[in-house]
């Protein structure tokens, strides 16, 4: 019997299910863009080096160009099309918009998905290569521009809009902290 080189798979993307036949060679990136018309995710280098294709897989940022679509079956995929809540932009999207965290915009969906991943990782206390004290007792380091640059280094911007990108990520992080603080004080009142 010849071994099958294609499969019918079901992908969970942005809360919806999509069933499609795929050649096993198909990357998640190509499945999204070419088969499901979810073209918000961009193809840059197609070698895992530029970050333009960053999506969230089970909430973790990954590059869709090195992820085989068939291997993503059963996992929760979130693309740039799925990060807003209806008409309300994700705080990271809002910050990029307000601070012009882009120029041509091609790397932006990947930058935003990556930044969402960064904020979650930071909230979980994950250190980075520039964190001075990585002992768990030290707690998460302040999300300084240096920390943001290191954590976002997997996303290249050909236009060089890095200054505003770092500002946007910092603002989104600060907004998140404020929201968390407000929630805590409301809970204290209640």
């Amino acid at each position, binding site marked *: 019997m010849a*071994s*099958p*080189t294609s*499969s019918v798979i079901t992908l969970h993307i942005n809360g919806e299910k999509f069933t499609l036949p795929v*050649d*096993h*060679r198909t*990357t998640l990136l190509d499945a999204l863009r070419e088969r499901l018309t979810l073209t918000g995710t961009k193809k840059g280098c*197609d*070698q*895992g080096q530029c*970050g333009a294709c*960053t999506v969230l*897989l089970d909430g*973790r*940022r*990954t*590059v869709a160009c*090195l*992820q*085989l679509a*068939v*291997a993503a079956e059963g996992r929760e995929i979130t693309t740039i099309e799925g990060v807003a809540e209806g008409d309300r932009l994700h705080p990271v999207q809002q910050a990029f918009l307000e601070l012009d965290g882009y120029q041509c915009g091609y790397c932006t969906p990947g930058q935003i998905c*990556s930044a969402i*991943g*960064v904020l979650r*990782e930071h909230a*979980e*206390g*994950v*250190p*980075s*290569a520039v*964190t001075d004290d*990585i*002992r*768990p007792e030290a707690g998460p380091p302040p999300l300084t521009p240096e920390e943001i*640059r*290191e*954590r*976002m*280094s*997997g*996303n290249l911007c050909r236009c060089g809009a890095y200054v505003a990108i770092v500002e946007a990520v910092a603002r989104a992080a600060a907004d998140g902290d404020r929201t968390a603080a407000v929630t805590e004080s409301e809970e204290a009142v209640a």
Partner: protein
Amino acid sequence: MREFDYRRAGDVAGAVALLGADPDTRYLGGGTNLVDLMKTGVERPTRLIDIRELPLDRVESTRDGGLRIGATVTNADLAAHPEVRRRYPALAQAVLAGASGQLRNMATVGGNLLQRTRCGYFTDVTQPCNKRIPGSGCPAVEGEHHNHAILGASEHCVAVHPSDMAVPLTAFDAVVHYETADGPGELPLTEFYLPVGGTPHLETALPAGALITAVVLPPAPVAARSRYRKVRERASYAFAIGSLAAALDIGDGVVREARLALGAVASRPWRARAAEEVLTGAPAVPETYAAAAEAELAAARPLPHNGYKVALMRNLVVAVLTELAEEAAR
């Protein structure tokens, strides 16, 4: 890319049985290196066994005070683990210094050890390469080799192993555990990678078809004061041109124990035993650190364009050991 069959393994025995003795089947972990090499045609498997759902994704303390790291633990989870950060900080630092946040979320520990060199002649299928096509030659020896090996290489191959993670694992005497159709086995990481010699295409001592199941770190109190320092051509997201994992235990001004491994200087992470011998029992002063570095680097055989690595590694050893000693004194 060549067409391929895809299977998901439900358990370790099933994965090993599925692969069998087929030389054209590969285990798929995070895929960050394998899928990339399949796109360029360096790897041309006809079947992938996806091992990501195997129950090998945990980091656990062992009874003797070491750590057992499952083969499918991601780089990100390994670096974030409290016990890794507390007991083997150089390992967490090394993992965090490698690749990008996205790739660390995908890549696995087993795959990290088995990743292939980034030598430009190896990754370019239009070029000869003894690692890819045995006997075809090594253009790097007389070509582009500024980031190639200064230790343990041969005229047949001067490529370096690109892993950061494997450098502290080598310093801390990690043991690779694997499963085969004939049962389990284990290999110390210092014996895991084969000497280059005339067979650079034979990279590890793993039996054919073996699946790495875990990497086990023995208890190493010295590792609690350890550091990984990586030198690269840009500040982030680049492979090392030289790196060092070091741990130092000092008492009464004398080095009681030292662990050193060098990265990006050889076809494998390079355990610096000659340096460790010089250090052990010697006064904890920079002159000792320099002598230790020189003892290790006496065996260096640089090529015309990578001689800088000898000085770089010497300076790296002295700088990191000095910092560790100062930290111990505080």
